């Protein structure tokens, strides 16, 4: 086991958010504000809200704020749609100095009017940003007036950037969704043999993969939150008899609320990896508890494992003994990745998240080996230190972490929202193994390890003055 130098942290104050797993389980400090100046990889409240809501396909996503907030989030995610593609447009009220001084409410109201005329949306989400929080525009009022005027849903998203961290944004998004799905008359909601799928954003069609499994099991997917959803489909959410929750970090709050308000029970599932996918499908089938569904589920699992199991096992032989470092957005993803790496013979030697919760870190602690470094809200200096100290062969992360891994000379797995290939379900497990193999076993690493030797190709040969062409 490699030594981990926890005594010499780049920034001492970060001590409580980092530990190496040992016999005693320490309490990890998480879900707090980032420390200034350490170059946290986290974004803001607005970012969290935008991640969750943006896949709602037929909504106008209007960012009430300066140009940057909208510009940096224009069509950057790989969420797919089977219908409208209005969600791929980025709308901004483009607040200027004048608006900051005199208030932006009028401009916002005008903006909504113009967008309604141009696109006839049924639903408008209005995102609040830092300055809106400071200048005190009354989003509620403007949205209420606009909704009445145009007879559509206009929902404010309270995502003022500085008011917490990314998980506060998840919550703001869930609050907006709760407003949207509230039925006009609660008593008339009829339950159906269907479920809502929470915490899947249909990246590279992942919702569709799961929907097709469920269809084979005779279970309807009512609506996914929020991958490939629309105003109309979201409004039927209260009719489902079960909520299954994949990305729990962004959706546990919504699941809890829906249980409380609509009496819909929820279960955490994971469709990442062969094992978790099979187990999750069984769990769902057991909930509906019909022999026919159970039979169909087992048949489906058997067929898929037969199709893909050997391929994944093949990669395991090639990858066994490699070590991975994981730094991702949420706890669910980290937990799934630890299991998924295990499936292909890889140990996770460092694992961290931007927004993991205490109970998720407890699960992580139970899953990892002794000595594995666990950390919350890491920064580049720490990632560099632990990746090197633990001898990781690859890092999992997002766009900002990728060049760091490459500069450190190790492989990288893109596990972010702009990827173009599905990682969910049985076939996704193969994609994952393939991607790990493609990066860990690439021939390029042969050339990067000892750059100094590049010009010594003829070292050791007799110096005989005869020039030969290489």
């Amino acid at each position: 086991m490699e030594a981990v130098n926890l005594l010499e942290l780049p920034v001492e104050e970060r001590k409580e958010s980092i530990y190496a797993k040992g016999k005693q389980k320490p309490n990890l400090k998480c879900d707090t504000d980032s420390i200034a100046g350490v170059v946290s990889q986290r974004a803001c409240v607005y970012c969290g809200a935008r991640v969750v809501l943006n896949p709602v396909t037929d909504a106008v996503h209007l960012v009430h704020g300066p140009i940057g907030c909208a510009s940096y989030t224009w069509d950057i995610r790989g969420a797919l749609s089977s219908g409208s593609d209005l969600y791929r447009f980025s709308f901004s009220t483009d607040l200027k100095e004048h608006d900051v001084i005199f208030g932006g409410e009028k401009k916002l109201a005008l903006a909504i009017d113009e967008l309604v005329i141009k696109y006839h949306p049924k639903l408008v989400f209005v995102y609040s940003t830092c300055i809106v929080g400071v200048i005190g525009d009354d989003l509620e009022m403007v949205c209420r007036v606009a909704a009445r005027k145009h007879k559509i849903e206009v929902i404010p998203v309270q995502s003022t950037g500085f008011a917490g961290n990314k998980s506060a944004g998840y919550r703001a998004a869930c609050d907006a969704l709760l407003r949207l799905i509230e039925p006009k008359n609660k008593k008339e909601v009829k339950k159906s043999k269907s479920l809502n799928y929470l915490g899947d954003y249909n990246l590279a069609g992942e919702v569709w993969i799961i929907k097709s499994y469920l269809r084979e099991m005779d279970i309807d997917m009512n609506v996914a939150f929020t991958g490939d959803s629309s105003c109309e489909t979201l409004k039927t959410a209260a009719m489902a008899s079960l909520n299954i929750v994949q990305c729990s970090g962004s959706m546990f709050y919504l699941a809890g609320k829906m249980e409380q308000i609509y009496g819909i029970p929820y279960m955490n599932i994971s469709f990442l990896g062969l094992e978790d996918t099979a187990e999750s499908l069984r769990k769902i089938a057991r909930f509906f508890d019909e022999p026919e569904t159970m039979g169909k589920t087992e048949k489906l699992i058997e067929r898929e494992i037969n199709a893909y199991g050997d391929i994944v096992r093949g990669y395991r032989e090639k990858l066994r003994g490699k070590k991975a470092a994981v730094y991702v957005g949420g706890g669910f993803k980290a937990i799934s990745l630890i299991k998924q790496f295990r499936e292909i013979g890889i140990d996770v030697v460092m694992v961290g998240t931007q927004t993991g919760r205490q109970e998720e870190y407890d699960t992580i602690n139970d899953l990892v080996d002794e000595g594995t470094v666990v950390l919350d809200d890491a920064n580049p200096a720490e990632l560099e230190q632990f990746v090197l100290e633990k001898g990781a062969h690859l890092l999992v992360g997002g766009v900002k972490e990728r060049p760091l891994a490459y500069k450190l000379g190790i492989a990288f797995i893109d596990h972010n929202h702009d990827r173009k290939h599905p990682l969910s379900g049985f076939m996704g497990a193969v994609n994952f193994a393939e991607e790990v193999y493609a990066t860990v076993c690439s021939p390029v690493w042969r050339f990067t390890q000892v750059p100094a030797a590049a010009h010594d190709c003829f070292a050791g040969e007799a110096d005989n003055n005869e020039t030969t062409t290489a």
Partner: protein
Amino acid sequence: MRMEQTHCLSVNENQCSMCMPMGAILAFKGVEGSMAIIHGSQGCSTYMRRHIAEHFNEPIDVASSSLNEKGTIYGGEANLRKGLDNAIKLYNPKVVGILTTCLAETIGEDIDRMAADYLEEKGLVDLPVVTVSTPGYGNSHFEGYFLAVKRIVAELVRQSVRHKGINIIVPNISPADIREIKRILKMMRVSYILLPDFSDTLDRALERPYRKMPAGGTKLADIAGMGGAQATIQMGVTVDEAISPGHYLESVFGVPLYNVPVPIGVQNTDLFVSLLKKLTGNPVPGSLEQERGRLLDCMVDSHKYNAYGKSVVFGDPENVYAVACTCLENGISPVVTATGGKGGKLADLLKTRLPDARPSAQVLCETDFSRIREKSREMEANIAIGHSGGRYLTEREGIPLVRYGFPIHDRVGGQRLLSVGYTGTAMLLDRITNTLLENKYRNYRRNIYQQFYYGTIKPAGKGRGEKNELRLQPGAKRE
């Protein structure tokens, strides 16, 4: 030429610009050993880091004062001080840039006073700190970039003895472009100080061990001496005086300013090279003349293909101007030129150039891609030249995109794109011509078939349904 300054909509739909601090970060990346800290909420620095990292494929470390609710209500000084503590400890910078955001400006943070107090209390009086006021609602990234360069100059240039060196101030061009400009300067045997030089910091060689603070960037000692230079050549013809570093050096230190366009295109490069010749008295070496000759050869070889080009050029004003000039030299009509910010002097400059092309050419300032798309369709543009936001024009209007500028997120190698000087222009022109050709080859068989074939067959009812009848209908949707 029709001018359109600002459109009256209250919505910006699909943005063609970024915010001020983003541009300022890029400027600081070109100063040796510099570390930028953004005074604002955590998201600002993270979004900008992501945006820059995806273009350059480099780790982009930028600190944040991580303002929270408390800091917003009671003032963010404690956060900024802690941020400075940690950033200095982690990165050991030679110079620190403090950039504000919408949030910091709106709550009225006095960063000059805070920085001065901090340095004094910590005994860091020798650490240069450059503050830049960059509210996101103020202006675009373009103004943020030049304002930051100006502030760097204002804070770091010292009164110095006159010397033969020439200041070269570059806009946001690629690291490969900066290297090419340095190569030309070397060929012309010019002693120079180039600012900001991110040719190494944002396009690093793979090396061991990894360094948090990349090597390269304009040296602080060199910047200090810019006030004694013989002249400043600023590639900033569109830049307003208020944010012009060259103008500052001229008015404060009496360094004569030569504002020239980015040397893209034969005329713009001639201007740059002639200026170097005039200022140094050095001759233009034969090898550079050869490069010019090859560019001319390239232009002649391609002119008939380019004659059919109707371009939409968008991005930073300085880059848009140089590329539009290059289009004009080659018979490509820049039917739409556009920039997301105010554009400085871009519109006025284009006014002097565009009439010889098409009277109806559109110049859009403070615009967005919704408007650019509308005008491109109206003007029947058939090639787009600009950053990767232009993929929207390809997807929605079928206009192929030549990627140029910042950011390029959907392809690799934005940092390696070479477009300046005679050789770079030839490479850019080849990319443009080949994109026109590729599009032509993709469509011409079908287009001509649809236009003419139906005139050769018998009218309906006589011999219809013969086995060789093709099923395509006239006017079927073009690719």
